[in-house]
């Protein structure tokens, strides 16, 4: 599954990425205890390169492994130090600030129980909470909701702001009632107007022409309609990386911040929902990964902006918030032949929010000499332990439910203790 960052179709974004799915109720037990916890799960689809996001700069084997693609503390764009071993990608200054303020935790060398390398299966395992891929209809977050006692219905006045989404991500699918909210967009402009404008730009302003072509994915239309200016009749090649990618990523950045910011607004409202999930696509960085100043840097910057927007928009509720950013698996420890990384295993999970006991990198660090199958960061922490720890201490869900319905066959994976402040 490759997702082309250069031209994310707006309709695709609308339908998949950035839509908030939230439980329609407020948890009763927490309210009774005088707490009002918020949990937002962000799924990064496509497999985040955990080593490019949080680099083991203190490990001697790191630079030899990645060469000039390695994040280092003294590079042209220096990585942001987290502790003596790890440093954060410089595209994420907000997360770094939040980490320094004790409200973010990074879990490294983490993975779901899935050990193959298919996106679809890996996402199914990540989102279903099951130990293995297979036919699944419900997600762990939804099943966790059924373990909570509902109080009043969230946001009773917002019936038309929320509608049940057509394609809820697996993680929130299930018996518990879930609402969806998609960022608003204006109706599209007619193709005729677009073609006239594009024709004008091609004659007068190549920069604008290029952007419009990329944004609207018109390369194919141009080819079909014989509108291309090239003598051989092929569509202009889309630049791989470079400016085109930067522009595409900037659109993604705006979209991430908008939808995450809006999600936080909902979760912050006194009568709003409390538990929700979002998915952001585009992390499958096989070629020209650009961890330092290219595509991945831009994506991480977009995620950073989304986290900052959540922090801002949560307002006072931030101190009762946990945002968990998870991905289906990591990527190869070494750079591949196309300046990217291929599907791997161990990666990172980002936790952010004022409810955390943060400012820590939680890792049973396996080292880089001891790679999983001689290619991937070896996973030493089960992601389910992290998620169970959050559900237990933040939402006060009992061990029995966690090891039963929510994460079946996971009794041996103990909830990670001490994540919450």
């Amino acid at each position, binding site marked *: 599954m490759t997702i082309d960052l250069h031209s994310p179709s*707006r309709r695709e974004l609308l339908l998949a990425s950035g839509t908030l799915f939230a439980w329609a109720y407020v948890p009763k037990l927490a309210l009774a205890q005088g707490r009002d916890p918020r949990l937002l799960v962000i799924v990064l689809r496509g497999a985040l390169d955990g080593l490019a996001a949080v680099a083991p700069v203190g490990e001697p084997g790191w630079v030899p492994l990645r060469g000039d693609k390695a994040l280092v503390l003294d590079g042209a764009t220096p990585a942001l130090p987290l502790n003596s071993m790890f440093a954060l990608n410089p595209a994420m200054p*907000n997360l770094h600030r939040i980490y320094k303020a004790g409200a973010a935790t990074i879990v490294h060398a983490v993975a779901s129980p899935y050990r193959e390398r298919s996106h679809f299966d890996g996402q199914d395992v990540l989102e279903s909470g099951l130990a293995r891929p297979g036919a699944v209809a419900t997600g762990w977050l939804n099943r966790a909701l059924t373990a909570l006692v509902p109080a009043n219905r969230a946001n*009773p*006045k*917002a*019936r*038309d*702001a929320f509608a049940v989404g057509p394609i809820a991500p697996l993680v929130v699918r299930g018996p518990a009632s879930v609402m969806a*909210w998609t*960022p*608003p*967009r*204006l*109706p*599209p*402009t*007619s193709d*005729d*107007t*677009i073609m*006239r*404008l594009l*024709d*004008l*730009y091609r*004659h*007068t*302003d190549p*920069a*604008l022409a290029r*952007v*419009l072509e990329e*944004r*609207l994915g018109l390369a194919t239309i141009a080819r079909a309609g014989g509108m291309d200016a090239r003598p051989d009749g092929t569509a202009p090649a889309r630049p791989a990386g470079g*400016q085109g990618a*930067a*522009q*595409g990523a*900037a*659109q993604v950045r*705006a979209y991430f*911040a*908008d939808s995450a*910011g*809006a999600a936080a*607004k*909902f979760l912050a*409202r006194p*009568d709003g929902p409390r538990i929700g999930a979002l998915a952001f696509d585009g992390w499958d960085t096989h070629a020209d990964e650009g961890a330092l100043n290219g595509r991945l840097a831009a994506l991480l910057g977009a995620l950073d*902006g989304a986290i*900052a*927007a959540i922090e*801002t*928009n949560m*307002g*006072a509720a931030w101190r009762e918030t946990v945002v968990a950013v998870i991905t289906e698996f990591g990527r190869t420890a070494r750079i591949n032949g196309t300046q990217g990384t291929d599907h791997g295993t161990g990666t990172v999970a980002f936790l952010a929010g004022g409810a955390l006991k943060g400012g820590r990198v939680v890792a049973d660090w396996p080292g880089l000499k001891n790679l999983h199958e001689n290619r991937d960061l070896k996973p030493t922490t089960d992601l389910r332990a992290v998620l169970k720890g959050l559900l237990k201490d933040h939402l006060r869900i009992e061990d029995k439910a966690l090891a039963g319905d929510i994460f079946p066959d996971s009794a041996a994976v103990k909830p990670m203790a001490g994540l919450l402040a």
Partner: protein
Amino acid sequence: MALDGKVAAALALHRFGLGPSLGSRSGAIAAIESDPRGAVLAGLDRPNAGRIVNAELLSSGEAARSAIAFQQAQREMRREARKTTPKPTDQNQDPAGGMAAAPPAPRNRGPAAKSDMRAAAGIAPQQIYLTEAKARFTAALDADIGFVERLTWFWSNHFCISADKGQVRPLAGAYEREAIRPHVLGRFADMLMAVECHPAMLIYLDNARSIGPNSAAGQNRGRGLNENLAREILELHTLGVRTVYRQDDVTSFAKIITGWSTVPPVQDPARGGEFMFNPRMHEPGTQIVIGKSYADGGYDQGRRVLADLARHPATAKHVAYKLARHFVADDPALALVERLTKRFRDTEGDLKEMAKALVMAPESWEPSRGKLKRPGEWIVGTLRAVGVNPPDIAPVMQAHNLLGEPLWRPPAPNGFADDDATWLDGLSQRLDVANQFARRLGGTHDPNAAFEATIAPLASAETRQTIARAESRQQALALLFMAPEFQRR
């Protein structure tokens, strides 16, 4: 200026101003073509330039108190509602871009009940915000050339706050009117002082809660320092990032401005929400900032630091660079930046002199137009082009949101980006907005007249032809708004 008069006049309106205005004779290309530069400069000498005179607008103190009263009344009402039978809900329409933009407004009450409540119990923060937004748009639409408005927007973004922070929302408009506008043609040092002790800024960057560890309040409560504002003053507002200050300077400066806070409404209902220096929160003692020692003098200690920062050479350079980059080019000519820097230093930060120097600079009149207008500038430009002041600003606000420049809501304290590449990316969204505006304006506006009034002297033959050959007036207007000559500064 070897440009043809009409060309220079159009350039002046698009580059320094808010675009030619069909509704205003003095904002027209024809009105200034004899002396475009003189016309831009003349705007600086107009009495009350930059001010918004509107008796309906609240001061920041009034706005804060009004918002608090409103929220209290809301809580009361919810409590009451819970006692009685729940009412059926009505439509939840939220004009300002969905709930993302707005806290819930009161609903389900008869008009009489509503007005009673308003009078007695304040105004919704969102309502205050929208009233301020409307006043700002009106000022932009009514401006002749709009240079002083553009300067205001520039400084407002330089010293940005965000209405996304709950308590800031009702203050956002008042902040710009109180801290920015009075000094846009005044002294940088005065603007700096007004900004940094304005409640909106103190709340936005957390200084209102920052407590000196050794102050009376710090010792009682065990709460402490917040460096946020001190850091951003050094990094963003004055010296610039990676210049002459270190972490120690940030910490010391943060200590110095502890106590710069707001009046708690419970303590003084009449002055609640206004600026106050609270000596109980102020860190006692002498502090060193950038090698200079500042003896404790309460509020005055911080004022002395700000005064020194305002005249620091790094500040002059930082501000000059940003100004040139905003108006002229992403990568402005070094000579221009140096001239503006010198002007800043020679005049002790006289911003009117800076504005003049910018307009007098030959580099400022380069005919090539590399920068895309920012969304807000472009949106106002489209409305001026057809001479419309929309009675309902909801679609205008929504357009700002969609294009990534929601009014007074930047994503971070460094404000909205000022480079071409950032905004280039929103081109297809611009097209949607242009299309939408053109549809709303319907067939009642003559696109050819708008073309002649706005970009004719600058336009290529292709642009002229594309607009003339459009299949409808709506399409022609959308194409005009999207023409390179209309979008570029």
